[in-house]
């Protein structure tokens, strides 16, 4: 396992390096200017010049890049231009909320996806399969910004059982935090759950057609065990890879969902920072997300190997 991690390290670092270049370049290509957005709508040129001077935006691009990377290597993520405070503080504040949201969404994805997949593949009753199909289709067809508003209308406005948005840290008040977490996590999870459900359904159907399931059936194994013990474990490894991909989507999708549920996470921070051209925050944040993705990929590989004994022994 350590060997695997070590082997992947150089290419992971390469990705991060290229990503940092791309992020830096793209941000400079985007029109707009941190100084003008910071100056406010009625500022004159002298105000803008003063701000540019203060932020070091008149330095050459390579020197700005090196300054950023140098800072990162020494653990200094730099100050936020526009939002206020240090980039590191902003990101660590948002990271907690986003990790809570993504993790909860991931749980939903796994739970709902498995339910969709298993029911879709094995349910005998036609209406159950139809319901699963309706749910998965709906989850993919209705965009999160509509799902989110509908969920809020239903659970917060009509039933008044859950808050419409906002965030309480799991660390300070877990009981309340969970109530804030439910709707956004569900909203974020639905499309991915539908994708996972389809994938698992397909995998389970495939696995159930395999010879080894016939072997087990011939041994008199109960259909329930055929599903959970024989078919599902074989459908899982590829689903884990998919889940790894979906984690990226969840982090990306957070931009929308966080806005709808007033969730103070990285998605909101990213959007805010990008809107104000807060270069250090956007740069740090995007690089962080790329890092997370790379790490998730690595974890996915390890979990895959753990789930599939054939990989372990190769």
């Amino acid at each position, binding site marked *: 396992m350590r060997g695997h991690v070590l082997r992947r390290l150089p290419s992971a670092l390469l990705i991060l390096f290229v990503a940092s270049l791309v992020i830096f370049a793209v941000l400079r290509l*985007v*029109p*707009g*200017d941190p100084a*003008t*957005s*910071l*100056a*406010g*709508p*009625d*500022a*004159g*040129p002298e105000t*803008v010049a*003063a*701000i540019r001077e*203060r932020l070091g935006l008149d330095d050459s691009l390579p020197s700005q890049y090196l300054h950023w990377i140098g800072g990162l290597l020494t653990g200094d993520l730099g100050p936020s*231009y*526009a*939002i*206020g*405070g240090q980039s590191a503080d*902003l990101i660590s*504040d948002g990271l907690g*909320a986003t990790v809570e949201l993504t993790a909860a969404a991931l749980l939903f994805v796994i739970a709902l996806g498995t339910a969709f997949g298993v029911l879709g593949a094995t349910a005998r009753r036609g209406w159950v399969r139809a319901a699963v199909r309706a749910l998965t289709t709906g989850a993919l067809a209705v965009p999160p910004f509509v799902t989110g*508003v509908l969920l*809020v*209308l239903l*659970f*917060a*406005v009509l*039933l*008044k*059982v*859950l*808050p*419409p*948005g*906002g*965030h*309480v840290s799991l660390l*300070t*008040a877990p*009981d*309340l935090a*969970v*109530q*804030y977490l439910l709707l956004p996590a569900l909203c974020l999870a639905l499309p991915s759950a539908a994708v996972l459900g389809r994938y698992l359904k397909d995998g389970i159907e495939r696995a159930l057609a395999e010879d080894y399931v016939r072997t087990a059936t011939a041994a008199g194994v109960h259909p329930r065990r055929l599903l959970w013990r024989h078919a599902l474990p074989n459908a899982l490894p590829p689903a884990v890879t998919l889940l790894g991909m979906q984690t990226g989507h969840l982090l990306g999708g957070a931009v929308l969902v966080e*806005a*709808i549920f*007033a969730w*103070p*996470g990285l998605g*909101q*921070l990213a959007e*805010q920072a990008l*809107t*104000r*051209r807060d270069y250090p925050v956007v740069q740090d944040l995007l690089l962080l997300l790329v890092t997370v993705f790379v790490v998730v990929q690595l974890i996915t590989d390890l979990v895959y190997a753990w789930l599939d004994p054939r990989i372990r022994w190769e």
Partner: protein
Amino acid sequence: MTELYPSMPGRLSRRSALRSAGGGALLLGFGLAGCRSAVSETGSAGQEGSAGPRRGGTVSVAINSDFTPSLLFAQSSQSYQHRLIYNTLTRYDDRLTPHPELATSWDYAADGRSITLRLRSDVTFHDGRPFTADDVIFAVKNLQNPARAAQLRSTAAVITGFDKRGDHELVLRLAHRVNNLFDLFEFMIITDRNSVEEALKGTRLNGTGPFKLTKWSPGSGLSFVRNDAYWLKDRPYLDAVEFRVVSQADALVSSLRTGQSQLSFQVPGRNLAVLKDHPDLTITPYDTGAGATYLGVNTTIAPLNDRTVRQALAYAVDRDRLLAQSLGGYGLASAAPWPKSSPAFTETGRTHYTHDPANARQLLKSAGHTRLDLPLLHLALPGDTAVAESLQYDLKQAGVHVTLQPTDPATAQKNLISQKMPALWTMSHGFAQVQPSTLAVSAYPFNEARNTSKFHSAEYTRVVQQAWTSPATGAAAGRLRQEISDILLDEAFIIDLVIRGNVQIAARRLHGVTLNKFSYLDLDHAYLAG
């Protein structure tokens, strides 16, 4: 962030029982059924009592964008916390008559070249340091710094000398007479001069205001608690105030509908319809006007350099429909920038241009055009897009075919202040709600020296300068205001569409909320009825 949720009242009502049941069903597996609910009652009150003012309670304010410390000294879209943490020297009433705040009284010199301010002596900052004239001197000098990006810098820059007479009396000497000094006093927050850099980073905001900032959670909100040593006796009533960042309009509405927030000024007009009939909420439009939606015209681009063409555009737009459909009916359709409360407001000015496509076509024809193709820049936000679409349709009826250019705010801002706007754009401007002269010296679109429309006219410059440096009241002032209005309407480089007032949505139990002219939230006298 600890106190963003009000706690659950003790007695189990039918509704809360229902909620526990529903919530419990939903929380299945979390083992939380029967625990505290995160669904708040409408505003949590202190003790039971009558409908009169009373102490206690927490008010949650929903804001659509977070506090930006670096813009502490500029007017940004979010200045609500300014008057909670800080005070200003004076405060206007609706008729633009200043009233004492930290300044108890003032005297203008006869030539208008200096003013003597007498300050309250019983004021301390949150850290206990007494407030003195030095703090005022610092505040003025601070705004003179271009890096602060203060819109009223030009007015602050007129103050050239400070004569301190003891700790609580101060004479400000002016380079020349200006008539919007009290705009500055309304605008300028008095901050602790020792911690201004920390304030700009958002780490420490030390003021003299009724509430102390206990925590700023970027992206999430601000928490304030009552300043027990506030100079206004027995005020404020409220124990605490929460600012909750809810950037998305629909989420903002939901937050209010569910009682999670009790106060907001930032619900877009289109979203207000759902709140209109809500039993627990009251909607209060302020007709003082905090800003106006306008159609900007780049006067250097042919054929828009022709005033007639610009006037045709002003006739082509249907302000009433725009108001009704894109802004939910909250505001005042007006061709002039002035809100009803402005001394410059006239009904003839407001209705100078009304929807008249035939006239618009006629004017275009007279200028030698039957069809124009022009770009129109707007912010890529839902409300702004709706306005732009509405304008596009109206202009098309007059033969002006515009291509929309949805643009992200940062790029738009850069184009705006670096004079790089395309032929047409639509945005909002402020500063028409105070002294009319302030508009032309502080609001960039109207600036006589340098504006986005690249409009120059010696006449405009002369009138503006004259209006700014002459007394604020009297017949001459009225005449100058009229002249400014006439020029603005006639030249039509900024075509005003709708004056947007602040629309306050508040819980029915919340009373005594006011805003100053720069949308600083004043909760000195606010209370939650029983």
